[in-house]
């Protein structure tokens, strides 16, 4: 059976999932490439993946735990590490996928494949960061003798939503950056501000308690806010407000789906714009 291709000036606006599946080998190989070259030629190599989250956790403990004296229901280091595990995944995938089209423009000008493969493939390598932060977290669980909640069975579902959130925002950024280079500068800014606008080193409940209601809603439009809260609920059973978590989860889902449509719209003209 021969493949028939018809090219006209009309382009479908529906994301082509079937075509994406045909390119799953490319998806895996691009992820493998990123994995292989991430720490290539660095002296400390893989240790960088350990040093970065460790230092961030340490600083947050000092600033928020010691200086600002934030109180949490479990030992503060456990609290921060659990937030960082999710955040480091999100921030890595977001910054990588957000800049991915610009970074591979040479390739985009020379060959066709579903362009979505490029930002999507970044979601895999981010798991290095997640697992390392998670390993630190397990260490702290043992050291502080924190009990593991039975809700831990929900972790895969929560991870799924954090993939949606990181890719949703990342794909939006990658397509917007092609259209408006301004977003190249917005991206690192979002990651930086997000570190403080997400309940990583303080409880989300504190935000709900101390801010007016409308501001709390605004706060939980940040998809990672609710996801990190519910992640803590799943691993050590901290209290969580279902309303706010569902706001975050819906935002993650909506961002992901709309990103696919916007990306589709930009996909055809990428080579003419870069």
């Amino acid at each position, binding site marked *: 059976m021969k*493949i028939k291709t018809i*090219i006209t*000036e009309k382009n479908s606006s529906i994301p082509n999932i079937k075509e994406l599946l045909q390119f799953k*080998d490319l998806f895996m190989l691009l992820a493998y490439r990123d994995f*292989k*070259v991430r720490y290539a030629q660095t002296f400390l190599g893989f240790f960088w993946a350990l040093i970065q989250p460790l230092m961030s956790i340490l600083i947050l403990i000092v600033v928020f735990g010691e200086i600002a004296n934030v109180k949490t229901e479990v030992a503060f280091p456990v609290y921060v590490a659990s937030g960082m595990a999710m955040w480091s995944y999100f921030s890595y995938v977001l910054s990588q996928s957000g800049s991915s089209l610009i970074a591979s423009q040479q390739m985009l000008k020379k*060959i*066709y494949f579903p362009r979505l493969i490029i930002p999507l493939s970044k979601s895999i390598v981010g798991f290095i960061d997640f697992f390392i932060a998670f390993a630190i977290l397990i260490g702290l669980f043992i050291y502080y003798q924190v009990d593991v909640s039975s809700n831990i069975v929900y972790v895969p579902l929560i991870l799924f939503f954090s993939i949606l959130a990181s890719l949703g925002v990342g794909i939006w950024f990658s397509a917007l950056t092609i259209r408006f280079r301004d977003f190249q500068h917005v991206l690192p800014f979002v990651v930086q501000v997000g570190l403080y606008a997400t309940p990583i080193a303080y409880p989300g409940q504190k935000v709900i308690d101390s801010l007016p209601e409308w501001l709390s809603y605004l706060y939980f439009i940040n998809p990672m806010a609710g996801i990190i809260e519910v992640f803590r609920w799943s691993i050590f059973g901290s209290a969580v407000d279902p309303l706010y978590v569902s706001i975050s989860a819906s935002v993650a889902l909506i961002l992901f789906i709309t990103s696919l449509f916007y990306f589709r719209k930009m996909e055809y003209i990428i080579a003419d714009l*870069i």
Partner: protein
Amino acid sequence: MKQTAISIQNVSKRYKIGVKRSSSFRETLGNAWKKNAEQVSNEFWALKDVSFDVAEGEIVGIMGKNGAGKSTILKILSKITPLTKGRIEIDGRVASLLEVGTGFHAELTGMQNIFLNGTILGMTRKEIKNKLDQIIDFAGISQFINTPVKHYSSGMYVRLAFSVAAHLEPEILIVDEVLAVGDIEFQKKCLGKMQEVSQNSGRTILFVSHNLASLKSLCQRGVVLSRGQKVYDGEIVDAIDHYVGLSKSSTEENKVSVREAHVGTMELEVTKIDIGTRNGTVSVGEEVDFRFEYIIHDKNFNFNGCHWGVQVHDDDNNLIFSHGNQFIDVSFNHDQFVEGKYFKFSIRNFPFKPGQYWLSYNVVDQNRYMDSMDSALGFEVHSGLPFNYQKEFKSGISAVDATWEVI
């Protein structure tokens, strides 16, 4: 009658030039206010109403000068860029090779790059695994296959990259000027491989090249494009004649073509370039001069210190040489810029091998182009006797001014 593999129907492609391609957010916001105000965008039709069919198993060469639309049509067929008008039907799996080694990563080993590049070109991992030994053999780099490609010589790199491409098995193969890289020996091997495959499996090939010899040996049919339009379609030998004729006629006219607009601030505009030689044609070793005729648009402009520059490219768009009056410490003052006078650039002894060449020029004030044009004039150079040669200069890129003696 064979089945049609590719049917290109009235395809046009418009680029917007003059506007920044990737605009800033502020501009878009700004433009939203004056939506109906004048559209400043310049349109440029890279392809205009091009139609032709390619039958299954046919090998078609596409020819044309730089900017004729060859690459654009390949990019549309490869789905890299969308068409503006028209319709294309393609029957069969397509692989396009607009560059060798797309996606190669310097830190990865040869083996890893084979898989990466292969999947980018549309092969599955399984297909690559099956052909892995053949690919490595063909490239002839088996002992370095587990070395990162950053340590490869450029020759090895190209051989590996091309080897992956040569083992693609699509029904339709689209090839841009990729054979221009790599050594001659390997080029021949690749051409052989491509020919062999197309004869055995009836593969359809669309092939763009400036290399007339390889077009002649590989293709049966040629399509000639000029300024975005199809101007000839027929037997490869006739198509090549037509293409060469196109270049010749532009030499005979010896005029600045209006193909591409002048670029510059236009205080002065070159209106004509004449080639001057002893007998009308340019030969190796001959004295050649280029006379620039111009008009002055801004009578009040002070032309003191303005200078002239030329670049000559060969037909593969390699820069052969550039020259300017500043190179040899010649300067022109304001009084010498008078309409009706010429600026003349002379080469005493044209040393480069016979072939097609393109002259670009620029007239510069400080660091600002007043007028410039790429490939403004094409000229053909015939064989001849350069310097003190007694025999015709045949092999190599350039003749040299040399002596032999006993000392």
